[in-house]
């Protein structure tokens, strides 16, 4: 069974979805989702180990058809790093989901909720694993379609979820369609869809205009899906009005997977030596990344709704990942992977903690948490640590991200950009401080509802907080894995 793990990684949650839809009792559906995401997490960890021991890519041929003909699933150092992130977050989010879903979603819809939940997870895992350009699109749409539905389920609590989901659907579909156009052009030029095969065959046609057009379409489509500034407007309302559990899952994983796909396509297919890539795409991504970092952070400072605030901060954090990609170097890519990993942990923790508050109070704004530091200290501390990690305070995972990001920029002699990156991340202090001030330095207003906390609510968030601190202190394995992941695409990361 061990050699089937790459496919089991995907079909376990995928086939769980119809089962969950059939289970009538809501706890049954939840239990199934928990079990399956747990199994998926286990599989991803084993796969990570298998890949590390093998030292090379594990390739799984679907239906026994070998590479350029059939669809293959590839577990290399890069996908082996991202899989545990996605499945791990999914597992923890599922633990937390029970309470959040009970509070926010009509009981009749629970089974369908978990079905969509498992589908979106399966879709994300599929995007990471597959080695076929069109298969990526299919999984992209599986995860997106179920995500639209999940976001829309927030309508029971907050009807703004509906237009948010609709806009998300429009832009998501446009992005995915752009991607398909690009892939279609590549297929026309090369006659293959297999990523490895594509990168080999592209060498023959690398200076044709059609290839550039394909690159532009693919990049643009994925920029949309990963919410790179200025194509990020769908993200904030979608995350803010979705059910809390969905916010946590998506904020921590959805855009990260798109970042991964972008890296896979740009570096794995076109390759760093592709003429014009480093200048054109690199500079563009770098510029947009920096701009996004500033715009996201400044917008977050002005927000008063916590979910929106951290959604805006996600824009900024995605900007940092883009900066790592835009550095067009092995270190930059390693930094992007490190930040992808760490940011998933931080945002997961933050959204789970905020979700626990929102599920009780109906919404989570600066007003809701006034003086909450004394009523729900454990939850608020989780938010605090997550916030500090976003700033990049040493001993949290965020520091390691920032360290490698800056190193990547300095290695390329981008002193100015490194400085700008620094300033923007320091600005994050302003919004974290707003939270600290509201939660701890203000008294709870008279008549405000009493907030409570119990282990079911804060343990999932704290799992991620502990991971954030753990990977901030014992970062060596993560750095090593991220460098291995970067080396898949560009050699020389250390």
């Amino acid at each position: 069974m061990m050699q089937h793990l790459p496919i089991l990684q995907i079909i376990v949650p995928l086939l769980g979805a119809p089962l969950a839809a059939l289970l009538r009792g809501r706890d049954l559906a939840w239990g199934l989702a928990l079990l399956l995401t747990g199994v998926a997490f286990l599989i991803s960890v084993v796969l990570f180990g298998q890949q590390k021991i093998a030292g090379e890519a594990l390739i799984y041929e679907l239906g026994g058809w070998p590479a350029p003909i059939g669809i293959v699933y590839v577990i290399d150092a890069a996908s082996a790093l991202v899989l545990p992130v996605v499945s791990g977050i999914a597992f923890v989010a599922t633990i937390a989901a029970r309470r959040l879903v009970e509070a926010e979603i009509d009981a009749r819809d629970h089974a369908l909720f978990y079905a969509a939940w498992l589908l979106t997870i399966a879709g994300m895992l599929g995007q990471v694993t597959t080695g076929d350009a069109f298969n990526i699109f299919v999984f992209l749409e599986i995860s997106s379609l179920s995500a639209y539905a999940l976001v829309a389920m927030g309508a029971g609590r907050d009807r703004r979820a509906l237009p948010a989901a609709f806009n998300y659907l429009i832009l998501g579909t446009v992005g995915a369609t752009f991607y398909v156009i690009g892939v279609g052009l590549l297929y026309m030029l090369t006659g293959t869809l297999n990523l490895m095969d594509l990168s080999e065959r592209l060498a023959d046609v690398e200076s044709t205009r059609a290839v550039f057009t394909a690159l532009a379409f693919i990049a643009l489509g994925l920029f949309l899906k990963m919410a790179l500034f200025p194509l990020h407007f769908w993200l904030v309302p979608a995350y803010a009005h979705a059910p809390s559990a969905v916010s946590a899952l998506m904020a921590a994983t959805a855009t990260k997977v798109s970042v991964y796909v972008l890296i896979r396509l740009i570096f794995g297919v076109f390759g760093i030596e592709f003429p014009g890539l480093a200048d054109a795409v690199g500079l563009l991504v770098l510029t947009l990344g920096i701009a996004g970092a500033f715009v996201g952070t400044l917008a977050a400072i002005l927000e008063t709704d916590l979910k929106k605030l951290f959604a805006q901060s996600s824009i900024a954090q995605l900007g940092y990942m883009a900066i790592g990609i835009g550095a067009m170097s092995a270190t930059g890519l390693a930094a992007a992977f490190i930040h992808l990993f760490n940011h998933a942990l931080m945002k997961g923790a933050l959204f789970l903690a905020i979700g626990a508050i929102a599920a009780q109070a109906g919404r989570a704004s600066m007003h809701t948490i006034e003086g909450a530091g004394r009523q729900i200290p454990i939850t608020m501390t989780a938010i605090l640590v997550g916030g500090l990690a976003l700033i990049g305070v040493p001993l949290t995972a965020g520091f390691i991200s920032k360290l490698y990001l800056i190193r990547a920029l300095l290695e390329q002699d981008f002193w100015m950009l490194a400085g700008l990156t620094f300033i923007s991340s320091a600005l994050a202090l302003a919004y974290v401080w707003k939270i600290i001030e509201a939660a701890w330095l203000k008294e709870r207003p008279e008549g405000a509802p009493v907030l409570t906390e119990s282990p079911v609510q804060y343990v999932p968030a704290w799992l991620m907080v502990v991971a954030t601190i753990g990977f901030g202190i014992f970062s060596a394995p993560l750095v090593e894995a991220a460098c291995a992941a970067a080396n898949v695409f560009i050699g020389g990361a250390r």
Partner: protein
Amino acid sequence: MAVDTLIPALLGLPLLASALVLLLRDKPDLRDGQALLIGVITAACTVRLYASAETDTVHFISLAAGLDISFTPEPLGKLFALVAGVLWPVATLYTIGYMRGAGEANHTRFMFFYAIAIHAAMGIALSGNLLTLFVFYEILTFSTYPLVTHKGTPEAMRAGRIYLGILVASSVVLLLFGVIGVWVLTGTLEFKSGGILAGHIDPFYVPFLLALFAFGIGKAALMPLHRWLPAAMVAPTPVSALLHAVAVVKAGVFTVLKVAVYIFGIDFLRETASSDWLVYVASFSILAASVVAMTKTNLKARLAYSTISQLGYIVLGASLATSLAASGAALHITAHAAGKITLFFCAGAIYVAHHLTDIKDMNGLGRIMPVTYTAFALGALSIIGVPPLAGAWSKIMLMGGALDNGHLLVLAALMISSLLNLVYLGEIVLRGFFAAPTHGLKSEAVQEAPMSMVLPLALTAAMSVALFFAVDYFILDFAKPAGG
């Protein structure tokens, strides 16, 4: 106690004190008593550490290649630990008196964060590399914020925001950038005699890197990043003492000194002439702050600007890039600590006994509070640099360093600044002893602050005197590379 357990002990004792403060929050006497006791033990430990020849590094954890949390007791760090450690119990005693005397609320919270701040100061003092130092530097910033905003008034909150804003923003933007820059360039952050940067960086960039540190270390209050210090004056006086003498600003200039000596290396700085610009910035800071101090009539505000000026001396010592000046700067940390804490203790005593904050109202107060005013005079003279008080030695060494390096303008600046010191500190002493009492002071009878306040300030004033005679023990020759 064995030397190798001293470092964990020094880091742990203040934490223990803070934990006990929380546990004993319902029993004020026990709570304050244990804090005092632990303070005395800590002080003893720092003395023992200072006397020992221990220099072995203690590793805690390793983050990534070249990024450790580790502690190395080197001479400069030991000295700072000694200053912070010895002044802590004194300040604790004073705090107890002040808090009870002035009737401040939230005593437990105050004591708790005070102990955490000492923990952070110890961490800074003993840190073995820049990363460790940075971590404790930030802990210090955050742990002192509740102290600065202790009163909870809108004014205090505003001051707290300035305090935190400047300190955290400067450190996160500039200092951390510098730290990472050093790590990228050299692959290590270890403090080494002679510095680690030489040979790793184009000399052209050194002044810029130095600027990241000089302005990034906001706690050194180099102009124009000094605004937080006067703003923080809204805090209770023991906090001011902590900020000015025991921990915060001292941690700032200590960091500057440590970075200049152990990261850049004195010789490297001198050879590349990278710190010349900082010499002038520091000199400007010294003079400008002195001039501003003369315009202030609020006692604590005047002392705050005096501190900014005095911190300039230490940054100057680091930037002169000679071994003599660096030693002088290290000595000045000690001398100024003893002097300035005395002045603040006196200011607090005056407030508790008579609720006066403005210098103009303090005419004739010297006759009512003779002990306090004598101590104040001693502290002031030490700051001015008059023998036989500690400040004299450090100023002489700094001047010597300036001469060594041929900075005659700096020499002039130092002398002018001493004159200005004399004017603005002397005024207070003269008004106290010789001016006719203003009304509002009812009797001419001696009316001192509580004993627990007078004792510490007498003690620190005595220290200023003692330092002058025992100066041999405090002149360090740490700036030379181990080999040469």
